[in-house]
């Protein structure tokens, strides 16, 4: 019978990515696919859903950005400290065989599953464009890792401190005009992902986005992450869904529900 109990083990290694984010490696064969997540548990503090940011040769990683009390406490941890996880959960990004080149568009820490996806695609002999946007150069994640992996790296910052001054969605538009791209993937702020899905549709290219909601159980039972109007749970039938499905959801880019289930409107933010 199925059982998804926590595995609690020492952190094998850590790596600082930015001032506020850190990658944790575990020597464990998770059998994850890019886009899937784990529920990360710091005993005595709390639990958070976090995307897997890489896995190869019996070692997987998660990259945590210190934003709330639980993630801040996790980011204090060092090699050898114990951390728990259960998973992998949810759907994953898919790259059909006939796809030759992909573009990924990440905003903020949304780049974590996309870096994993690019490594996966490159290992299969595909061309990958890694497009990333952040506030400034200090907040860019994985640009170096992606260059080393052999991806074409395109960066955008709000202040122009690295790459172009502007939005990653503009870089996507330019890339779709200039290159043959067969599929687009995105993870990051929802308003950005909505634009990515719309732009891809405009260029007649299929897209997949990773849509996040407040999650409690991670196993498709509690209903906390059910979205309007399909009523599907994003922890199980997501987080990765097609751009087309996402655009059909009434709440995509418009609102989400908090831990009580109350609807909260997204502020209209520029991306």
């Amino acid at each position, binding site marked *: 019978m199925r059982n998804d109990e926590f595995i609690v083990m020492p952190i094998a290694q850590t790596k600082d990515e930015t001032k506020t984010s850190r990658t944790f490696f575990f020597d464990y064969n998770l059998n994850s696919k890019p886009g899937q997540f784990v529920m990360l*548990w710091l005993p005595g503090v709390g639990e958070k859903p976090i995307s897997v940011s890489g896995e190869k040769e019996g070692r997987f990683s998660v990259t945590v950005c210190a934003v709330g009390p639980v993630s801040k406490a996790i980011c204090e941890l060092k090699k050898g400290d114990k951390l728990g996880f259960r998973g992998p959960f949810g759907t994953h990004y898919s790259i059909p065989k006939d796809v030759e080149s992909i573009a990924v568009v990440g905003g903020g820490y949304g780049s974590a599953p996309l870096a994993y996806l690019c490594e996966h695609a490159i290992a299969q002999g595909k061309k990958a464009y890694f497009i990333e946007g952040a506030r400034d150069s200090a907040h860019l994640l994985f640009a170096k890792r992606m260059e080393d992996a052999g991806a074409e790296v395109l960066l955008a910052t709000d202040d122009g401190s690295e790459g172009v001054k502007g939005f990653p969605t503009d870089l996507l538009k330019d890339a779709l005009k200039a290159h043959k791209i067969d599929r687009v993937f995105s993870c990051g702020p929802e308003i950005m992902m909505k634009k990515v899905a719309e732009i891809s549709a405009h260029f007649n290219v299929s897209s997949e986005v990773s849509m996040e909601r407040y999650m409690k159980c991670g196993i498709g039972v509690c209903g906390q992450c059910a979205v309007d109007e399909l009523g599907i749970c994003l922890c199980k039938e997501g987080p990765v869904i097609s751009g087309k499905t996402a655009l059909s959801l009434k709440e995509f880019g418009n609102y989400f529900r908090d831990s009580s289930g109350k609807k909260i409107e997204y502020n209209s933010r520029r991306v």
Partner: protein
Amino acid sequence: MLSVSLAGAKLQNPTVLASGVLGTTGASLIRVAKEGAGAVTTKSISLEARKGHPTPVITTFDAGMINAVGLSNPGIKDFLPELEAAVKGSPSPVIASIFASTIEEFGELAKEVSQAKPSLIELNISCPNVNDEFGRPFACDAVSSSEVVKAAKKGTAIPLFVKLSPNVANIGAIAQAVEKAGADGITAINTVGPGMQINIEAAMPVLTNKVGGVSGPAIKPVAVRCVYDIYKATKLPIIGTGGVTNARDAIEMVMAGATAVGIGSAVYYGGVEVFSEIPKGMREFMESEGYSKIEKMRGIAHEE
């Protein structure tokens, strides 16, 4: 062959989405109904919004799960539009589950929730989070249970089902008490326990709340016994709930005396597809065993 009636509500098949699993939004309820559920129950709703307990709130073990979600819900005001949408869009009857911390509030909530015209109202008096003035669930005491039913009756004309706790000495006596107080049916059982799971590497309980209600296959024998006892003690229709994951389990519940069968944790093992698979399996069993309709099996295990 499989259709049943619960206090006037017509179900195409006896499967009922149990309260607390999915059922958080109108869209979620409609989705489960469209997957084939004979009826769908909302997550329990209170007067005010509740954020629930801090995570982890759910953990699993070899034969089930333990949860301390903590009755999170947006409160009746925000939930009413969701319930209205479900009643309008669901192909099967919608059961509104409500809970409160005082007897008076149950009456108020029953009245409020009736505005959306659910087919039935389920009084959740048995969650470990719903306590009377002595810190116990109302369902642990025959007098408190009856008072809740009477208060709710005053607030609504919609049939009332009462969800009972297995954690009592004599569930049959509680069932008789709520029947006398005017209940129209019984849902049994709520989760067992509470239970606890300790992760031995972390050397501490997994749930932040430390304890939680136990559900899943591990509690099925307790649920079957409770349904058997209630069937013997009252004439009320029963939604037999607890550890049902397949058609054989559902048949077992019916033979113990259940009119309908609640399904919750099974969604973890088999996805929402269980709502089409269980009726299919029940039909196959009935055909091979020669039962022409579900009534022929109801309570059959009581025959000497």
